[in-house]
């Protein structure tokens, strides 16, 4: 039942990514200051925004799980965080490449956004050992939700604290008085953001579908009294 709508969603994602990439390479102007390397910005920033929003979304699903007791929300929360952690790896890698190209170092400590993202990423990386260490599935789901809520509150706080501690050298995308993006760059950026967000949604839906299918398969096997091959993942929640 999770598979419904997956195909149009995937097609929309492919189209959006193709459109985004063609805009990036053929439409958006070269940055006067940074040149070609600035184009990684169209990948790096949407990935980062999507990952952070995904973490918050995972926290919202966790709240729903705690309030309703419905295990399905826990699975949603798990998959959201899982996907955002994967996106987070991509953010750190693309960020490092950009930093090497524009500042000459792979890692720049006095750069608040990079450092805050690393801390948030480390925080969410502990989500897996945390889930794994709690055996009772009911308790695991509940504690994982509490973790997701706590970490969700931690994300904005952390960004604030790190930003205050450091100098401000990271390019601000929006909102600065004389910064800001020219129209063509802004359009490209927004299309890229939509494409990456669609990719995230598609992947989340795909993983939920896969989990639901393997859960159904397991139940069918049990009904037929057939032996279950392998135990599957002990961390990932089952989807009914």
């Amino acid at each position, binding site marked *: 039942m999770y598979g419904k709508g997956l195909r149009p969603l995937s097609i929309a994602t492919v189209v959006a990514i193709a459109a985004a990439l063609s805009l990036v390479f053929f439409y958006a102007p070269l940055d006067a200051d940074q040149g070609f390397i600035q184009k990684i910005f169209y990948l790096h920033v949407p990935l980062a925004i999507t990952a952070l929003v995904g973490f918050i979304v995972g926290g919202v699903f966790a709240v729903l799980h705690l309030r309703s007791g419905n295990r399905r929300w826990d699975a949603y929360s798990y998959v959201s965080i899982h996907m955002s952690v994967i996106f987070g790896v991509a953010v750190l890698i693309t960020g490092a490449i950009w930093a090497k190209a524009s500042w000459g170092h792979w890692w720049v400590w006095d750069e608040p956004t990079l450092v805050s993202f690393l801390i948030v990423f480390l925080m969410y990386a502990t989500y897996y050992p945390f889930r794994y*260490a709690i055996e009772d599935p009911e308790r695991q789901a509940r504690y994982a939700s509490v973790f997701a809520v706590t970490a969700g509150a931690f994300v904005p706080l952390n960004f604030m604290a790190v930003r205050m501690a450091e100098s401000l050298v990271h390019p601000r995308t929006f909102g600065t008085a004389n910064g800001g993006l020219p129209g063509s760059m802004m359009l490209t950026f927004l299309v890229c953001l939509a494409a990456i967000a669609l990719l995230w949604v598609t992947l989340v839906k795909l993983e939920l579908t896969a989990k639901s299918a393997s859960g159904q398969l397991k139940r069918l096997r049990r009904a037929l009294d057939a032996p279950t091959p392998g135990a599957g993942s002990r961390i990932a929640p089952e989807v009914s």
Partner: protein
Amino acid sequence: MSAPRVTPTRSAFAAILGKDLRAELRTLQSLPAMALFATTTFVIFRFGLDRTSLSGSLASGVLWATLLFAALLGVNRLFVAEREEGGFDAIRLAPIDRTALFAAKAAALLVYLLVLELVVVPIFALFFLDSATALAPLALVLLLADLGIAATGTLISSMAVHSRARDLLGPLVLLPLVVPLMIAATGATEPLLAVGGPGYERFGTWLAVLSLYDLIFLLVGYAVFDFLLED
């Protein structure tokens, strides 16, 4: 039949806190170990850094890293007795608001941290600092940071104690969570311990960040703690 009587949260809080402090006084399980750990760590820093006196960012880093790791020892042990002696079941059975347990445990941890610092910070000053004038404003920073560690530490510890790897999991999850707290605490401490007397550069801002952190995580703990005690 009369309505079931519910013990007021305040007296439940006082009872649990009193029980914890009395148990700590009689067994001395956490505090001496924390103080000894911190003192030994100072000695290790003395040789690791090969300095006999510290100031500025180095002093603030040594102080906070040591206090944080010493606090982790207390955080790890905070709920062990409840788990092993069936305290959780008793709390669940008792007609009290469960958040009383969160508040009492956080208060107990706060007391441990304050006692720890009362012992250890003078030792730090004696070992590394040239003058003790910074200690008075430092006390304010310590208090606010302790409140934050107490809130997050209690929350994480109550979850970690039910896991297979509790000694591992507590520190693992807690460390990234207290990074913003440490940023603000070291930011406020650094000018205080600068050479040539304490400075107050951005002191108020850092205190505001510390207070905000405390407030947010006390609220989060209050909101979610009920779910940790079910079943």
